[in-house]
Protein backbone atom coordinates (compact mmCIF):
# COMPACT_ATOMS: atom_id res chain seq x y z
CA UNK A 1 0.00 0.00 0.00
CA UNK A 2 1.38 3.42 -0.97
CA UNK A 3 1.22 6.41 1.37
CA UNK A 4 -0.65 9.60 0.45
CA UNK A 5 1.55 12.25 -1.09
CA UNK A 6 -1.15 14.86 -0.59
CA UNK A 7 -3.89 14.84 1.97
CA UNK A 8 -6.60 17.40 2.51
CA UNK A 9 -8.61 17.63 5.73
CA UNK A 10 -11.82 19.63 6.03
CA UNK A 11 -10.45 22.29 3.71
CA UNK A 12 -12.39 25.53 3.49
CA UNK A 13 -11.67 28.64 1.50
CA UNK A 14 -13.82 31.72 1.51
CA UNK A 15 -13.45 35.17 -0.02
CA UNK A 16 -14.94 38.58 0.61
CA UNK A 17 -15.09 38.20 4.40
CA UNK A 18 -16.75 34.82 4.16
CA UNK A 19 -19.53 35.92 1.81
CA UNK A 20 -18.19 33.70 -0.98
CA UNK A 21 -17.34 30.11 -0.06
CA UNK A 22 -15.18 28.50 -2.75
CA UNK A 23 -14.49 25.31 -0.81
CA UNK A 24 -16.80 24.01 1.92
CA UNK A 25 -14.98 21.28 3.79
CA UNK A 26 -13.07 19.14 1.33
CA UNK A 27 -11.41 15.89 2.40
CA UNK A 28 -9.12 14.18 -0.07
CA UNK A 29 -6.20 11.80 -0.20
CA UNK A 30 -3.96 11.40 -3.23
CA UNK A 31 -1.46 8.56 -3.41
CA UNK A 32 2.08 9.02 -4.66
CA UNK A 33 2.30 8.29 -8.39
CA UNK A 34 -1.45 8.75 -8.97
CA UNK A 35 -2.97 10.45 -11.97
CA UNK A 36 -5.99 12.38 -10.74
CA UNK A 37 -8.34 14.68 -12.62
CA UNK A 38 -10.55 17.25 -10.96
CA UNK A 39 -13.55 18.52 -12.85
CA UNK A 40 -16.56 20.63 -12.19
CA UNK A 41 -18.54 23.53 -13.48
CA UNK A 42 -17.10 26.99 -13.68
CA UNK A 43 -16.88 28.45 -10.15
CA UNK A 44 -17.23 25.03 -8.52
CA UNK A 45 -13.93 25.50 -6.65
CA UNK A 46 -11.73 23.14 -8.65
CA UNK A 47 -9.02 25.74 -9.41
CA UNK A 48 -9.13 26.97 -5.80
CA UNK A 49 -8.50 23.41 -4.65
CA UNK A 50 -5.56 23.11 -7.04
CA UNK A 51 -4.11 26.40 -5.80
CA UNK A 52 -4.31 25.20 -2.21
CA UNK A 53 -2.78 21.83 -3.14
CA UNK A 54 0.03 23.72 -4.84
CA UNK A 55 0.69 26.10 -1.97
CA UNK A 56 -0.17 29.14 -4.07
CA UNK A 57 -2.74 30.22 -1.52
CA UNK A 58 -3.63 29.47 2.07
CA UNK A 59 -6.89 27.94 3.28
CA UNK A 60 -9.38 29.75 5.48
CA UNK A 61 -9.44 26.62 7.62
CA UNK A 62 -8.46 22.97 7.34
CA UNK A 63 -5.16 21.41 6.42
CA UNK A 64 -3.16 20.43 3.35
CA UNK A 65 -0.49 17.85 4.10
CA UNK A 66 2.37 16.96 1.80
CA UNK A 67 3.95 13.64 2.78
CA UNK A 68 2.29 14.09 6.20
CA UNK A 69 3.81 17.58 6.72
CA UNK A 70 1.36 20.42 6.95
CA UNK A 71 1.84 23.12 4.33
CA UNK A 72 2.55 26.55 5.74
CA UNK A 73 3.72 25.24 9.12
CA UNK A 74 5.85 22.09 8.86
CA UNK A 75 6.93 23.01 5.34
CA UNK A 76 7.15 26.58 3.98
CA UNK A 77 5.01 27.36 0.95
CA UNK A 78 7.95 28.89 -0.97
CA UNK A 79 10.10 25.82 -0.39
CA UNK A 80 7.20 23.54 -1.24
CA UNK A 81 6.58 25.30 -4.55
CA UNK A 82 10.29 25.44 -5.36
CA UNK A 83 11.17 21.82 -4.60
CA UNK A 84 8.11 19.60 -4.62
CA UNK A 85 5.52 20.80 -7.13
CA UNK A 86 5.52 21.89 -10.74
CA UNK A 87 2.76 24.07 -12.16
CA UNK A 88 1.27 24.13 -15.63
CA UNK A 89 -1.26 26.86 -16.35
CA UNK A 90 -3.90 27.33 -19.00
CA UNK A 91 -2.36 30.67 -20.04
CA UNK A 92 1.18 29.17 -20.03
CA UNK A 93 2.55 32.11 -18.03
CA UNK A 94 5.93 32.17 -19.73
CA UNK A 95 8.04 35.28 -19.17
CA UNK A 96 7.83 37.15 -22.48
CA UNK A 97 11.31 38.70 -22.29
CA UNK A 98 13.08 35.37 -21.86
CA UNK A 99 13.89 32.73 -24.47
CA UNK A 100 12.46 29.23 -24.11
CA UNK A 101 15.66 27.86 -22.57
CA UNK A 102 15.79 30.78 -20.14
CA UNK A 103 12.16 30.35 -19.12
CA UNK A 104 12.86 26.75 -18.18
CA UNK A 105 15.74 27.87 -15.97
CA UNK A 106 13.66 30.32 -13.92
CA UNK A 107 12.54 27.80 -11.24
CA UNK A 108 16.13 26.58 -10.91
CA UNK A 109 17.16 30.08 -9.79
CA UNK A 110 14.89 29.61 -6.77
CA UNK A 111 16.89 26.55 -5.69
CA UNK A 112 20.27 28.08 -6.55
CA UNK A 113 21.31 25.57 -9.16
CA UNK A 114 24.59 26.46 -10.86
CA UNK A 115 24.42 28.26 -14.18
CA UNK A 116 26.01 25.60 -16.38
CA UNK A 117 23.88 22.84 -14.87
CA UNK A 118 20.79 24.98 -15.30
CA UNK A 119 21.34 25.51 -19.01
CA UNK A 120 22.16 21.84 -19.54
CA UNK A 121 19.06 20.63 -17.69
CA UNK A 122 16.82 23.16 -19.47
CA UNK A 123 18.14 21.98 -22.83
CA UNK A 124 17.57 18.33 -21.90
CA UNK A 125 14.00 19.02 -20.83
CA UNK A 126 13.18 21.02 -23.95
CA UNK A 127 14.65 18.26 -26.10
CA UNK A 128 12.48 15.78 -24.21
CA UNK A 129 9.48 17.96 -25.14
CA UNK A 130 10.57 17.86 -28.79
CA UNK A 131 11.63 21.49 -28.80
CA UNK A 132 15.33 21.06 -29.54
CA UNK A 133 14.94 23.40 -32.53
CA UNK A 134 13.13 26.09 -30.49
CA UNK A 135 15.53 26.60 -27.57
CA UNK A 136 16.28 30.23 -28.30
CA UNK A 137 12.85 31.38 -29.39
CA UNK A 138 10.89 33.92 -27.38
CA UNK A 139 7.37 32.91 -26.30
CA UNK A 140 5.75 35.14 -28.94
CA UNK A 141 7.70 33.23 -31.59
CA UNK A 142 6.23 29.90 -30.48
CA UNK A 143 2.87 28.29 -31.26
CA UNK A 144 0.39 27.72 -28.41
CA UNK A 145 1.26 24.03 -28.26
CA UNK A 146 4.99 24.81 -28.17
CA UNK A 147 4.47 27.33 -25.39
CA UNK A 148 2.67 24.77 -23.31
CA UNK A 149 5.48 22.29 -23.89
CA UNK A 150 7.98 24.90 -22.69
CA UNK A 151 5.75 25.39 -19.64
CA UNK A 152 5.79 21.62 -19.00
CA UNK A 153 9.57 21.57 -19.25
CA UNK A 154 9.70 24.47 -16.79
CA UNK A 155 7.38 22.61 -14.40
CA UNK A 156 9.79 19.65 -14.41
CA UNK A 157 12.90 21.76 -13.87
CA UNK A 158 13.39 21.10 -10.15
CA UNK A 159 12.44 17.38 -10.20
CA UNK A 160 9.08 17.84 -8.45
CA UNK A 161 7.17 14.84 -7.15
CA UNK A 162 3.79 16.43 -7.93
CA UNK A 163 2.72 18.00 -11.20
CA UNK A 164 -0.30 20.30 -11.03
CA UNK A 165 -2.01 21.36 -14.24
CA UNK A 166 -4.82 23.90 -14.31
CA UNK A 167 -6.77 23.48 -17.58
CA UNK A 168 -3.55 22.69 -19.47
CA UNK A 169 -5.40 22.26 -22.77
CA UNK A 170 -7.78 25.17 -22.34
CA UNK A 171 -6.01 27.35 -24.90
CA UNK A 172 -5.17 24.59 -27.37
CA UNK A 173 -6.84 23.04 -30.41
CA UNK A 174 -7.88 19.39 -30.29
CA UNK A 175 -4.69 18.07 -31.90
CA UNK A 176 -2.43 19.95 -29.50
CA UNK A 177 -4.72 19.10 -26.56
CA UNK A 178 -4.37 15.41 -27.23
CA UNK A 179 -0.63 15.75 -27.68
CA UNK A 180 -0.18 17.68 -24.43
CA UNK A 181 -2.28 15.21 -22.43
CA UNK A 182 -0.37 12.30 -23.97
CA UNK A 183 2.84 14.03 -23.01
CA UNK A 184 1.72 14.69 -19.42
CA UNK A 185 0.56 11.11 -18.92
CA UNK A 186 3.81 9.84 -20.41
CA UNK A 187 5.84 12.01 -18.04
CA UNK A 188 3.76 10.87 -15.06
CA UNK A 189 4.32 7.21 -15.92
CA UNK A 190 7.98 7.55 -16.81
CA UNK A 191 8.89 9.52 -13.71
CA UNK A 192 6.36 7.96 -11.32
CA UNK A 193 5.09 11.41 -10.49
CA UNK A 194 1.75 12.40 -9.07
CA UNK A 195 -0.23 14.23 -11.76
CA UNK A 196 -3.27 16.30 -10.84
CA UNK A 197 -5.14 17.90 -13.72
CA UNK A 198 -8.01 20.33 -13.36
CA UNK A 199 -10.22 20.22 -16.43
CA UNK A 200 -13.73 20.89 -17.60
CA UNK A 201 -13.35 18.51 -20.55
CA UNK A 202 -15.05 15.17 -19.90
CA UNK A 203 -12.71 13.20 -22.16
CA UNK A 204 -9.70 14.29 -20.18
CA UNK A 205 -11.49 13.98 -16.84
CA UNK A 206 -12.48 10.40 -17.60
CA UNK A 207 -9.05 9.42 -18.89
CA UNK A 208 -7.59 9.32 -15.37
CA UNK A 209 -7.75 6.32 -13.04
CA UNK A 210 -9.02 8.68 -10.32
CA UNK A 211 -11.54 11.33 -11.17
CA UNK A 212 -12.85 13.82 -8.63
CA UNK A 213 -15.93 15.93 -9.31
CA UNK A 214 -16.46 19.13 -7.42
CA UNK A 215 -19.78 20.87 -7.09
CA UNK A 216 -20.44 24.02 -5.06
CA UNK A 217 -17.18 23.68 -3.19
CA UNK A 218 -17.66 20.06 -2.18
CA UNK A 219 -16.50 16.76 -3.61
CA UNK A 220 -19.37 14.79 -5.09
CA UNK A 221 -19.74 11.33 -3.79
Amino acid at each position, binding site marked *: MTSPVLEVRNLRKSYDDGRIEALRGVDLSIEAGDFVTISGASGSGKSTLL*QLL*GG*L*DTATSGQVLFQNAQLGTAIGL*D*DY*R*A*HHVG*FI*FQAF*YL*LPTLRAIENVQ*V*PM*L*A*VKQEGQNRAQRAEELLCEMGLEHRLNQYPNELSAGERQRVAIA*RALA*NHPSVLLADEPTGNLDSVNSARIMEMLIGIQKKRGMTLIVVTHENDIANSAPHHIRIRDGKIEA
Partner: protein
Amino acid sequence: MAIGAFVALVGFSRSFEQEWMRLYSSAGTDIVVVEKTFLETSIDESLGTKLQALPIVSQATPMIFNMMDLTPEVNALSFGWKADSYDFEALTFLSGHKFQDGKAEVILGDVLAENLNKKVGDTLEIQGKAFTVTGVYHGGSALEAGAAILPIDQLQEISSLQGKVSGFHVRLQPAPKGQTQEQYVKRAEGIIEAALPGLRAAPASEWASKNQFVALAHAVAWGTSSIALIVGILGIANTMAMSVFERTREIGILRALGWKSWNIMLLIQVEAIVLGVVGGVVGLGVGYAGLKLLATLPQTASIVSADVSPAHLLQALGIAILAGIVAGAIPAWRGAHLSPVEALRHD
Protein backbone atom coordinates in the same frame (compact mmCIF):
# COMPACT_ATOMS: atom_id res chain seq x y z
CA MET B 1 19.68 65.19 -12.77
CA ALA B 2 19.97 65.02 -8.99
CA ILE B 3 23.47 63.58 -9.29
CA GLY B 4 24.31 66.15 -11.96
CA ALA B 5 23.19 68.89 -9.60
CA PHE B 6 25.22 67.35 -6.79
CA VAL B 7 28.38 67.07 -8.89
CA ALA B 8 28.03 70.58 -10.29
CA LEU B 9 26.93 72.39 -7.14
CA VAL B 10 28.96 70.58 -4.51
CA GLY B 11 31.88 70.48 -6.95
CA PHE B 12 31.45 74.20 -7.37
CA SER B 13 31.50 74.85 -3.62
CA ARG B 14 34.47 72.52 -3.06
CA SER B 15 36.31 74.08 -5.93
CA PHE B 16 35.59 77.46 -4.36
CA GLU B 17 37.06 76.18 -1.09
CA GLN B 18 40.13 74.80 -2.84
CA GLU B 19 40.74 78.15 -4.52
CA TRP B 20 40.68 79.84 -1.14
CA MET B 21 43.21 77.29 0.08
CA ARG B 22 45.45 78.02 -2.89
CA LEU B 23 45.04 81.73 -2.39
CA TYR B 24 46.63 81.55 1.06
CA SER B 25 49.10 78.75 0.50
CA SER B 26 50.55 80.39 -2.62
CA ALA B 27 51.21 83.62 -0.73
CA GLY B 28 52.63 81.88 2.33
CA THR B 29 50.12 83.40 4.74
CA ASP B 30 50.14 81.70 8.14
CA ILE B 31 47.36 83.57 9.90
CA VAL B 32 44.44 85.69 8.81
CA VAL B 33 43.25 88.36 11.21
CA VAL B 34 39.59 89.27 10.69
CA GLU B 35 36.45 90.33 12.51
CA LYS B 36 35.19 87.76 15.00
CA THR B 37 31.69 87.65 13.56
CA PHE B 38 31.44 88.16 9.82
CA LEU B 39 33.98 89.13 7.17
CA GLU B 40 33.40 92.83 6.62
CA THR B 41 35.56 95.83 5.95
CA SER B 42 35.32 97.44 9.38
CA ILE B 43 38.69 96.85 11.01
CA ASP B 44 40.80 99.89 11.76
CA GLU B 45 43.81 99.86 9.42
CA SER B 46 45.99 101.38 12.10
CA LEU B 47 45.84 98.12 14.04
CA GLY B 48 48.29 96.84 11.45
CA THR B 49 51.10 98.74 13.17
CA LYS B 50 50.27 97.06 16.48
CA LEU B 51 50.18 93.69 14.76
CA GLN B 52 53.48 94.23 12.97
CA ALA B 53 55.09 95.17 16.29
CA LEU B 54 54.44 91.74 17.79
CA PRO B 55 57.73 89.78 17.96
CA ILE B 56 56.11 86.61 16.65
CA VAL B 57 54.94 88.41 13.48
CA SER B 58 57.30 88.61 10.54
CA GLN B 59 55.05 90.50 8.13
CA ALA B 60 51.49 91.82 8.48
CA THR B 61 49.78 93.30 5.48
CA PRO B 62 46.30 94.83 5.36
CA MET B 63 43.78 93.72 2.75
CA ILE B 64 40.29 94.45 1.57
CA PHE B 65 38.17 91.76 0.04
CA ASN B 66 35.16 92.71 -2.02
CA MET B 67 32.94 91.62 -4.89
CA MET B 68 32.31 94.18 -7.59
CA ASP B 69 30.28 94.50 -10.78
CA LEU B 70 32.87 95.60 -13.31
CA THR B 71 30.47 95.40 -16.26
CA PRO B 72 26.82 94.31 -16.40
CA GLU B 73 28.03 90.81 -17.38
CA VAL B 74 31.20 90.50 -15.35
CA ASN B 75 31.47 90.65 -11.62
CA ALA B 76 34.74 89.88 -9.98
CA LEU B 77 36.52 89.62 -6.71
CA SER B 78 38.39 92.77 -5.89
CA PHE B 79 41.32 92.87 -3.53
CA GLY B 80 42.79 95.96 -1.99
CA TRP B 81 46.49 95.53 -1.24
CA LYS B 82 49.34 97.82 -0.39
CA ALA B 83 52.00 98.09 -3.10
CA ASP B 84 54.58 96.57 -0.76
CA SER B 85 52.37 93.64 0.28
CA TYR B 86 54.06 90.26 0.34
CA ASP B 87 50.91 88.87 -1.34
CA PHE B 88 52.44 89.99 -4.67
CA GLU B 89 54.97 87.18 -4.33
CA ALA B 90 52.29 84.69 -5.36
CA LEU B 91 51.64 86.52 -8.64
CA THR B 92 53.49 86.18 -11.92
CA PHE B 93 53.19 89.22 -14.15
CA LEU B 94 52.42 88.29 -17.73
CA SER B 95 52.63 91.91 -18.80
CA GLY B 96 53.17 95.27 -17.11
CA HIS B 97 53.91 95.73 -13.45
CA LYS B 98 52.19 96.24 -10.13
CA PHE B 99 50.44 99.46 -9.17
CA GLN B 100 51.62 102.28 -6.95
CA ASP B 101 49.83 103.27 -3.76
CA GLY B 102 47.73 106.40 -4.07
CA LYS B 103 47.29 106.12 -7.82
CA ALA B 104 44.17 105.12 -9.77
CA GLU B 105 45.79 101.94 -11.03
CA VAL B 106 44.66 98.36 -11.15
CA ILE B 107 46.16 95.01 -12.03
CA LEU B 108 44.01 92.23 -13.50
CA GLY B 109 44.16 88.46 -13.28
CA ASP B 110 44.64 86.84 -16.69
CA VAL B 111 41.15 85.25 -16.68
CA LEU B 112 39.49 88.56 -15.80
CA ALA B 113 41.60 90.50 -18.33
CA GLU B 114 40.48 88.11 -21.03
CA ASN B 115 36.83 88.34 -19.97
CA LEU B 116 37.00 92.13 -19.92
CA ASN B 117 39.18 92.22 -23.04
CA LYS B 118 41.60 94.57 -21.25
CA LYS B 119 45.37 94.89 -21.54
CA VAL B 120 48.08 96.99 -19.97
CA GLY B 121 47.45 100.68 -20.62
CA ASP B 122 43.70 100.31 -20.99
CA THR B 123 41.30 102.09 -18.70
CA LEU B 124 38.80 100.29 -16.51
CA GLU B 125 35.96 102.09 -14.81
CA ILE B 126 35.29 100.86 -11.28
CA GLN B 127 32.52 102.40 -9.19
CA GLY B 128 32.53 105.44 -11.46
CA LYS B 129 36.30 106.04 -11.25
CA ALA B 130 38.69 105.39 -14.15
CA PHE B 131 41.62 103.09 -13.33
CA THR B 132 44.60 102.43 -15.57
CA VAL B 133 45.52 98.79 -16.03
CA THR B 134 49.22 98.58 -15.14
CA GLY B 135 49.63 94.83 -15.19
CA VAL B 136 48.13 91.48 -16.05
CA TYR B 137 49.19 88.60 -13.84
CA HIS B 138 48.73 84.89 -13.43
CA GLY B 139 47.64 84.03 -9.90
CA GLY B 140 48.16 81.01 -7.74
CA SER B 141 44.43 80.38 -7.56
CA ALA B 142 41.32 80.93 -9.69
CA LEU B 143 40.24 83.55 -7.14
CA GLU B 144 43.28 85.63 -8.03
CA ALA B 145 43.22 84.77 -11.73
CA GLY B 146 39.72 86.16 -11.95
CA ALA B 147 40.28 89.12 -9.63
CA ALA B 148 41.11 92.79 -9.87
CA ILE B 149 43.67 94.08 -7.38
CA LEU B 150 43.73 97.78 -6.52
CA PRO B 151 45.78 99.90 -4.15
CA ILE B 152 44.07 99.54 -0.80
CA ASP B 153 43.67 103.30 -0.44
CA GLN B 154 41.87 103.44 -3.79
CA LEU B 155 39.49 100.65 -2.89
CA GLN B 156 38.82 102.38 0.45
CA GLU B 157 38.07 105.61 -1.42
CA ILE B 158 35.64 104.19 -3.99
CA SER B 159 33.93 102.12 -1.28
CA SER B 160 33.78 105.03 1.17
CA LEU B 161 35.67 102.95 3.71
CA GLN B 162 38.62 105.22 4.43
CA GLY B 163 40.92 103.80 7.08
CA LYS B 164 39.08 100.49 7.19
CA VAL B 165 40.27 97.06 6.07
CA SER B 166 38.75 93.55 5.87
CA GLY B 167 41.67 92.02 7.72
CA PHE B 168 45.38 91.35 7.78
CA HIS B 169 47.43 88.59 6.24
CA VAL B 170 50.20 87.55 8.59
CA ARG B 171 53.43 85.70 8.05
CA LEU B 172 54.97 84.47 11.28
CA GLN B 173 58.61 84.36 12.27
CA PRO B 174 60.10 80.89 11.80
CA ALA B 175 58.90 78.43 14.41
CA PRO B 176 61.41 77.87 17.23
CA LYS B 177 63.10 74.49 17.43
CA GLY B 178 61.19 71.83 19.31
CA GLN B 179 57.80 73.28 18.38
CA THR B 180 55.63 71.99 15.55
CA GLN B 181 54.20 74.49 13.08
CA GLU B 182 50.74 73.64 14.36
CA GLN B 183 51.67 74.34 17.97
CA TYR B 184 53.45 77.50 16.92
CA VAL B 185 50.49 78.83 14.91
CA LYS B 186 48.19 78.01 17.83
CA ARG B 187 50.38 79.99 20.17
CA ALA B 188 50.54 82.86 17.68
CA GLU B 189 46.76 82.95 17.48
CA GLY B 190 46.58 83.46 21.24
CA ILE B 191 49.21 86.19 21.22
CA ILE B 192 47.54 88.08 18.35
CA GLU B 193 44.03 87.83 19.77
CA ALA B 194 45.34 89.04 23.15
CA ALA B 195 47.03 92.00 21.48
CA LEU B 196 44.03 92.87 19.29
CA PRO B 197 40.91 92.28 21.40
CA GLY B 198 37.73 91.77 19.40
CA LEU B 199 39.53 90.34 16.38
CA ARG B 200 39.96 86.75 15.42
CA ALA B 201 43.27 85.22 14.40
CA ALA B 202 42.65 82.10 12.35
CA PRO B 203 45.15 79.75 10.73
CA ALA B 204 45.04 80.46 6.99
CA SER B 205 44.06 76.89 6.11
CA GLU B 206 41.17 76.93 8.58
CA TRP B 207 40.02 80.34 7.40
CA ALA B 208 40.17 79.17 3.79
CA SER B 209 37.85 76.24 4.41
CA LYS B 210 35.59 77.74 7.05
CA ASN B 211 35.06 81.36 6.09
CA GLN B 212 31.51 82.56 5.62
CA PHE B 213 31.67 82.57 1.81
CA VAL B 214 32.80 78.96 1.62
CA ALA B 215 30.34 77.92 4.33
CA LEU B 216 27.53 79.67 2.46
CA ALA B 217 28.56 78.06 -0.84
CA HIS B 218 28.60 74.63 0.82
CA ALA B 219 25.22 75.20 2.45
CA VAL B 220 23.60 76.35 -0.79
CA ALA B 221 25.18 73.50 -2.74
CA TRP B 222 24.14 70.81 -0.29
CA GLY B 223 20.71 72.33 0.21
CA THR B 224 19.98 72.51 -3.50
CA SER B 225 21.49 69.09 -4.12
CA SER B 226 19.41 67.58 -1.33
CA ILE B 227 16.21 68.92 -2.85
CA ALA B 228 17.27 67.61 -6.27
CA LEU B 229 18.12 64.28 -4.65
CA ILE B 230 14.71 64.01 -2.99
CA VAL B 231 13.08 64.71 -6.36
CA GLY B 232 15.37 62.09 -7.92
CA ILE B 233 14.48 59.50 -5.28
CA LEU B 234 10.78 60.16 -5.81
CA GLY B 235 11.34 59.75 -9.56
CA ILE B 236 13.05 56.38 -9.17
CA ALA B 237 10.44 55.27 -6.62
CA ASN B 238 7.65 56.19 -9.04
CA THR B 239 9.38 54.35 -11.88
CA MET B 240 9.86 51.27 -9.72
CA ALA B 241 6.27 51.40 -8.39
CA MET B 242 4.99 51.55 -11.97
CA SER B 243 7.35 48.75 -12.94
CA VAL B 244 6.13 46.54 -10.08
CA PHE B 245 2.50 47.29 -11.01
CA GLU B 246 3.06 46.49 -14.68
CA ARG B 247 4.92 43.32 -13.81
CA THR B 248 2.52 42.06 -11.17
CA ARG B 249 1.72 38.91 -13.15
CA GLU B 250 5.41 38.32 -13.80
CA ILE B 251 6.02 38.52 -10.06
CA GLY B 252 3.14 36.08 -9.55
CA ILE B 253 4.74 33.64 -12.00
CA LEU B 254 8.07 33.85 -10.18
CA ARG B 255 6.35 33.31 -6.83
CA ALA B 256 4.43 30.32 -8.27
CA LEU B 257 7.74 28.86 -9.44
CA GLY B 258 9.16 28.96 -5.94
CA TRP B 259 10.88 32.32 -5.79
CA LYS B 260 10.89 33.54 -2.21
CA SER B 261 9.74 36.99 -1.13
CA TRP B 262 13.30 38.10 -0.56
CA ASN B 263 14.28 36.92 -4.08
CA ILE B 264 11.62 39.23 -5.49
CA MET B 265 12.66 42.03 -3.14
CA LEU B 266 16.28 41.64 -4.21
CA LEU B 267 15.32 41.61 -7.89
CA ILE B 268 13.37 44.88 -7.61
CA GLN B 269 15.93 46.46 -5.34
CA VAL B 270 18.79 45.60 -7.71
CA GLU B 271 16.80 47.10 -10.59
CA ALA B 272 16.30 50.29 -8.56
CA ILE B 273 20.03 50.42 -7.75
CA VAL B 274 20.95 49.87 -11.41
CA LEU B 275 18.55 52.67 -12.32
CA GLY B 276 20.22 54.87 -9.71
CA VAL B 277 23.72 53.99 -10.90
CA VAL B 278 22.91 54.53 -14.59
CA GLY B 279 21.27 57.83 -13.72
CA GLY B 280 24.23 58.62 -11.50
CA VAL B 281 26.80 57.96 -14.24
CA VAL B 282 24.83 60.13 -16.66
CA GLY B 283 24.52 62.72 -13.89
CA LEU B 284 28.29 62.65 -13.33
CA GLY B 285 28.83 63.53 -16.97
CA VAL B 286 26.17 66.24 -16.95
CA GLY B 287 27.43 67.65 -13.66
CA TYR B 288 31.05 67.69 -14.79
CA ALA B 289 30.04 69.40 -18.02
CA GLY B 290 28.07 71.93 -15.96
CA LEU B 291 31.08 72.59 -13.77
CA LYS B 292 33.31 73.04 -16.83
CA LEU B 293 30.78 75.51 -18.17
CA LEU B 294 30.73 77.44 -14.88
CA ALA B 295 34.52 77.58 -14.96
CA THR B 296 34.42 79.30 -18.34
CA LEU B 297 31.52 81.70 -17.79
CA PRO B 298 32.65 85.27 -17.12
CA GLN B 299 30.24 85.52 -14.19
CA THR B 300 31.71 82.54 -12.35
CA ALA B 301 35.17 81.93 -13.79
CA SER B 302 36.74 84.03 -11.07
CA ILE B 303 35.55 81.80 -8.24
CA VAL B 304 35.60 78.29 -9.62
CA SER B 305 37.84 75.86 -11.45
CA ALA B 306 36.69 72.63 -13.12
CA ASP B 307 38.79 70.40 -10.86
CA VAL B 308 36.69 67.51 -9.58
CA SER B 309 38.32 65.08 -7.21
CA PRO B 310 37.84 61.31 -7.64
CA ALA B 311 36.55 61.27 -4.05
CA HIS B 312 33.80 63.69 -5.03
CA LEU B 313 32.81 61.51 -8.00
CA LEU B 314 32.81 58.40 -5.81
CA GLN B 315 30.70 60.22 -3.26
CA ALA B 316 28.21 61.15 -6.01
CA LEU B 317 28.10 57.54 -7.19
CA GLY B 318 27.59 56.39 -3.59
CA ILE B 319 24.70 58.81 -3.25
CA ALA B 320 23.22 57.46 -6.51
CA ILE B 321 23.39 53.89 -5.15
CA LEU B 322 21.88 55.02 -1.86
CA ALA B 323 19.12 56.85 -3.75
CA GLY B 324 18.38 53.61 -5.64
CA ILE B 325 18.20 51.63 -2.40
CA VAL B 326 15.91 54.16 -0.71
CA ALA B 327 13.72 54.62 -3.79
CA GLY B 328 13.38 50.88 -4.41
CA ALA B 329 12.62 49.89 -0.83
CA ILE B 330 8.85 50.39 -0.80
CA PRO B 331 8.17 49.03 -4.33
CA ALA B 332 10.40 46.05 -3.50
CA TRP B 333 8.53 45.36 -0.28
CA ARG B 334 5.17 45.63 -2.04
CA GLY B 335 6.26 43.37 -4.88
CA ALA B 336 7.67 40.80 -2.50
CA HIS B 337 4.47 40.58 -0.49
CA LEU B 338 2.07 40.11 -3.40
CA SER B 339 -0.04 36.97 -3.10
CA PRO B 340 0.94 34.60 -5.95
CA VAL B 341 -2.72 33.91 -6.77
CA GLU B 342 -3.70 37.58 -6.78
CA ALA B 343 -0.62 38.45 -8.82
CA LEU B 344 -1.37 35.74 -11.41
CA ARG B 345 -4.91 37.09 -11.82
CA HIS B 346 -3.57 40.57 -12.56
CA ASP B 347 -4.17 41.75 -16.13
